[in-house]
């Protein structure tokens, strides 16, 4: 098993873990978005979706444990990489200037990441770890987004998700070695498109609800 630990522990191995967990989260977000779109169908549609989800029972628990593991891997590896990368240049440059390679997504990756951890905790506290015996999920959402600061935090978070994904998605492809002359331009466009889909898809929901559109 030494080889396995050595491989994953290498710089490329760590990046591989980031890439695979990151891609998984992109998949999760797509599923999550698909589910959330039922909000546009109104209270009943959304509650039905929630109920359907909960009827999965033990499967759902497995999924949750899976997501938690992915998150732990993504977060811990990410923080470790961040620390290593910070340490690798002990004396910083007095003048910093980009040659044009960096993007807003790539520059802010660790910071958007840390923000998103906080947001996810906040999000789970809001919607997951709440007592749902007296109320439905739709009502919780409805109440939450009638509060303006909540709405703004959610919209901001979705913009940040988009920024994170805009770099993360194509970057994951690069990391696993899938950088091909013919396909990479498509992957890069897809990263931006998906980022926008997340930003608009998720970001518009609080507005829709808050303003009862």
């Amino acid at each position: 098993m030494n080889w396995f630990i050595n491989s994953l522990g290498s710089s490329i191995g760590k990046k591989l873990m980031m890439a695979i967990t990151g891609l998984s989260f992109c998949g999760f977000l797509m599923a999550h978005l698909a589910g959330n779109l039922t909000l546009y169908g109104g209270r009943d549609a959304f509650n039905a979706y929630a109920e359907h989800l909960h009827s999965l029972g033990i499967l759902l628990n497995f999924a949750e444990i899976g997501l938690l593991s992915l998150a732990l891997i993504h977060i811990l590896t990410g923080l470790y990489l961040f620390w290593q990368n910070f340490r690798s240049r002990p004396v910083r440059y007095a003048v910093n200037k980009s040659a044009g390679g960096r993007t807003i997504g790539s520059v802010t990756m660790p910071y958007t990441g840390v923000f998103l951890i906080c947001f996810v905790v906040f999000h789970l506290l809001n919607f997951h770890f709440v007592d749902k015996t007296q109320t439905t999920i739709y009502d919780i959402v409805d109440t939450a987004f009638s509060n303006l600061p909540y709405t703004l935090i959610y919209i901001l978070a979705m913009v940040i998700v988009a920024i994170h994904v805009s770099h993360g998605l194509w970057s994951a492809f690069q990391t696993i070695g899938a950088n091909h002359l013919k396909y990479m331009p498509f992957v890069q466009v897809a990263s931006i498109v998906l980022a926008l889909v997340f930003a608009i898809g998720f970001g518009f929901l609080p507005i829709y609800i808050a303003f009862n559109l």
Partner: protein
Amino acid sequence: MTQTINVTLKIWRQNGPKEKGRFETFNAENISTDMSFLEMLDVVNEQLTRNGKIPIAFDHDCREGICGTCGAVINGRPHGPEKATTLCQLHMRKFKNGDTIAIEPFRAMAFRVIRDLVIDRSPLDEIIQAGGYISANTGGAPDANAIPIPQQTAETAMDAAACIGCGACVASCPNASAMLFTGAKISQLALLPQGRPEAAERAISMVRRMDRLGFGNCSNERECEAECPKEISITHIARMNREFLKASFFSSVK
């Protein structure tokens, strides 16, 4: 047209690896715009020498952009502001009269500052020692045309092989990562049929050595590719990643 300009230089001075460094300011006057950047430093050094001061130490050799010896960070850009250019090929016509130019050494934990702008890049040699070669002892080679190599493959290998080992990729990387340097060599040798027998061993060994030497990790910022004086593409990093993952999980090399 040839003109002369005056510029202010803020140059990093550091007496030794363990000493504390600081910026010193110099005025470079009557600098011809036809001078190369290093010739401008020569002029400053001649003046310093005549005035009984210690000249600025900087590495340089071929002064035609191929040996990879020179390099400093000019206003935040390794090898200066011009694309695909080493410091020795950068000319003063890229600057304006009255400019202030900050000159710092390539910085990374793996690159110790020896003095002023002179750094120790031997970690790059160590990465090559870990497998940046084909184990073909002199004498045993088959006829050069025994194995045809598609032209496109040879050209792509040449793109990677153009690396001059200057270290600008490390210097420009926000994480001081040596992935472009390492990737270029692994990619070149992985592309060629002669390099295949050792490909798995090479990828694993070189990547592990690179990690041990204290370089940072790649976060796909693409600064290396943008600064590389030989414009080596990060597709070579992707090929290295592929080779490394293939070798780690699907080869018998441990």
